[in-house]
């Protein structure tokens, strides 16, 4: 005969625990384990007195999934029953479960109904009755398989050890049972609703606690199954009206007097209406501020777990596939693959055909330019640079439009007006319309791709005369050897005319990929980046430390500053460019991500700066120079190519000691400092965004000429 273990997680559950445990003993369960997570009442003592094994854990170790896994590990029964501390099995409960597992092969779990306690409100009692009746209107056990409801409740459930060992509970803050139900079905197991495995269980929380519980419940449901509860005012009013009527009817059938029915009208309306509101809020908890989340949660949870799409990644599903009875796992398609699909489409049928060139088109004063950009967020340096140029192309009279290629799904639900607003707010003022995706593509004279993610989609756009690739960096070097690095490298081989962000980058594109390319130089916004009226300090190093961008070689920069700090213990170090503070061996001032205005003040006050780039030289050294701040960058690469060996930048090898030496020279040698600072101011004054836009426009016209010449 199969052996049965019962696991009951407990915290301050003395009210019903004795009753639950004696019912379990009466059912002749082989083993009872009570897991107490820090009860301050007599729960543990009651459990011991009832003959149960008690396992005490600290409250912070508790997790609905984690603790139940622990319980299953600590017991030995072939079947493992989970009950909550207030769910009392009714006679025949265990026999009913045993029967359930014999109903079909590969039954992984069974669950039974909750019978309301005598003190339950009519709303709860009716809801429980009606809810469980939906699983089996005839009152017979029902076997559920993939495609049937995923519902499973650890208030009253029983699992086969084999199934639990294969899937285990997810470590979720809530609704681990629902997640298990989904995983179980997806992995080809069956579950059984057994109406005869009944427990007495209902809650009688005060109204506010009920609402907060609904908030937790639906938040858990969102986290475990991705379910989002819809909310519609009109529909909610209708629902409340119907529910109040239903509760009154339910009371009437049970012989309640008219006065009693009337007394329940207001609580019933508040309960059903509040439930709708709090369920919808729980589903959207990730959008609420942490303090509000915490207040609304009965469990006091202020954290936000990202909502998961359960059906896409059930743990154990892969292992379950080889099983002969498994029907396979359906994985929902993901937008993440659009990026690769565009590349595949280009490989499959080649780029969309360009329109035949019109003689003299390159000289036309006004061109129709479509800029294709990757999705963005605040603080993106690449986008800032793009829109500095693009806003100027608009001002030069071109007819411009912006097309956002959302290769991740984080802009999926963002409407174009919002994207346009954000571009204007974060980057530069543009007058063009913005489109999210290419559904409304209407053609242009020139398609301007920017960023490797935009190139394959741009190659699929028809109704244009030429395609130009605004290359800001050698992006295949941003990745380790991977699909991304290969796809990024592929973008340079499709014959787009490249307008590269430095002569170093242009040469690389020509030599390595045989691309047709020309260069432009980044500009500086001199209205913002200029020497500010503030006394220049003699002890401050400003370091652009952005560890999120590996090409910035932050670990080496930090080692260099560590060395410098050892030599100069009175040194003041300022780190900026990243939101989170970085762990260092030296003290520093953390400024986070700064807007241009405060940055220009920092550059005007600091003594010297450090800004490293392992690929193309960035804008930052130029902006520092424009404020009179000498900067250290890497020798031998793009920085040396852009600024010259003896130019405005103090160059150093990629070596912490050499970088520390270079910074030391700027701090200790006044003449050198003056020389670099003055050369930097001169150099920066030659670089404006107007010039950069002019050069990009020349590149665009050149691409049209190449088309005309049939190249």
């Amino acid at each position: 005969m199969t052996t049965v273990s019962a696991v009951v997680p407990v915290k301050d559950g003395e009210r019903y625990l004795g009753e639950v445990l004696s019912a379990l003993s009466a059912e002749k369960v082989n083993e009872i384990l009570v897991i107490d997570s820090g009860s301050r009442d007599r729960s543990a003592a009651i459990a011991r007195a009832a003959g149960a094994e008690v396992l005490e854990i600290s409250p912070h170790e508790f997790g609905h999934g984690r603790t139940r896994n622990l319980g299953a590990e600590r017991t030995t029964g072939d079947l493992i029953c989970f009950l909550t501390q207030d769910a009392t099995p009714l006679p025949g409960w265990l026999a009913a479960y045993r029967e359930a597992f014999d109903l079909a092969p590969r039954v992984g779990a069974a669950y039974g109904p909750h019978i309301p306690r005598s003190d339950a409100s009519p709303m709860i009692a009716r809801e429980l009755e009606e809810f469980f009746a939906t699983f089996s209107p005839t009152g017979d056990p029902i076997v559920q398989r993939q495609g049937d409801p995923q519902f499973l409740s650890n208030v009253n459930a029983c699992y086969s050890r084999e199934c639990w060992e294969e899937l285990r509970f997810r470590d979720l803050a809530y609704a681990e049972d629902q997640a298990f139900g989904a995983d179980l079905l997806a992995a080809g197991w069956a579950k059984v609703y057994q109406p005869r495995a009944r427990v007495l269980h209902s809650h009688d929380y005060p109204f506010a606690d009920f609402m907060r519980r609904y908030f937790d419940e639906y938040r858990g449901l969102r986290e475990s199954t991705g379910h989002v509860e819809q909310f519609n005012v009109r529909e909610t009013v209708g629902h409340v009206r119907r529910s109040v009527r239903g509760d009154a009817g339910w009371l009437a059938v049970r012989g309640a007097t008219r006065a009693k029915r009337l007394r329940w009208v207001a609580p019933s309306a508040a309960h059903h209406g509040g439930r709708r509101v709090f369920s919808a809020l729980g589903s959207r908890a990730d959008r609420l501020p942490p303090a509000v989340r915490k207040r609304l949660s009965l469990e006091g949870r202020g954290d936000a777990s990202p909502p998961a799409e359960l059906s896409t990644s059930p743990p154990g599903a892969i292992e379950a596939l080889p099983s002969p009875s498994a029907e396979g796992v359906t994985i929902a398609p993901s937008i993440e693959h659009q990026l690769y699909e565009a590349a595949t489409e280009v490989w499959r049928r080649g780029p969309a055909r360009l329109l035949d060139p019109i003689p003299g088109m390159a000289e036309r004063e006004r061109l129709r330019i479509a800029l294709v950009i990757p999705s963005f967020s605040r603080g993106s340096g690449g986008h800032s640079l793009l829109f500095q140029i693009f806003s100027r192309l608009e001002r030069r009279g071109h007819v411009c439009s912006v097309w956002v290629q959302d290769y991740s799904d984080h802009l999926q639900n963002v409407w174009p007006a919002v994207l346009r607003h954000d571009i204007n707010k974060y980057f530069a003022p543009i007058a063009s319309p913005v489109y999210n995706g290419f559904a409304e593509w209407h053609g242009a004279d020139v398609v301007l791709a920017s960023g490797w993610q935009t190139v394959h989609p741009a190659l699929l756009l028809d109704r244009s005369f030429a395609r130009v690739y605004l290359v800001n960096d050698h992006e295949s070097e941003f990745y380790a050897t991977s699909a991304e690095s290969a796809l990024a490298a592929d973008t340079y081989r499709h014959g787009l005319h490249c307008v590269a962000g430095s002569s170093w980058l242009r040469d690389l594109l020509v030599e390595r990929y045989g691309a047709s390319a020309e260069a432009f130089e980044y500009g500086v916004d001199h209205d913002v980046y200029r020497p500010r009226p503030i006394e220049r300090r003699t002890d401050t190093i400003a370091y652009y430390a952005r560890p999120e961008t590996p090409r910035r070689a932050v670990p080496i920069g930090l080692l260099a500053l560590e060395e410098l700090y050892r030599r100069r213990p009175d040194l003041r170090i300022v780190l900026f460019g990243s939101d989170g503070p970085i762990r260092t061996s030296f003290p520093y001032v953390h400024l986070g991500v700064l807007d241009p205005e405060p940055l220009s003040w920092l550059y005007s006050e600091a003594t010297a700066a450090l800004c490293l780039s392992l690929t193309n030289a960035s804008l930052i050294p130029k902006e520092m120079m424009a404020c009179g701040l000498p900067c250290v960058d890497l020798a031998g690469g793009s920085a040396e190519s852009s600024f010259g060996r003896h130019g405005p930048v103090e160059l150093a090898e990629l070596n912490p000691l050499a970088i520390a030496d270079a910074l030391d020279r700027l701090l200790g040698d006044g003449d050198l400092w003056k020389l670099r600072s003055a050369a930097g101011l001169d150099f920066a004054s030659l670089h404006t965004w107007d010039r950069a836009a002019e050069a990009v426009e020349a590149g665009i016209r050149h691409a049209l000429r190449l088309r005309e010449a049939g190249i």
Partner: protein
Amino acid sequence: MNAEEQSSQEEIRRLRARIEQLEAQVAEVEAWANKAVAEAQVKTYWLDRWHLDLNALMRRRSADRTRAAARRLRSVYRAARGLRRSS
């Protein structure tokens, strides 16, 4: 160059000028359309931000009722204002 060749060159020049003119018109129309779309995007910012589809909203019966109620309120207000002015 004979007269026939000259006339054909002339024709090509004229056609190119016409193409240029038509292209300029296309650019003009597109610039106008882009401006209109951009202005509309500015106006619909909050609607887009909150995913409000006014067309769908106004198709509802409750929207009709609200508009009718607003019209009635407005007529009452105007009548009251008219009375005050005339008295």
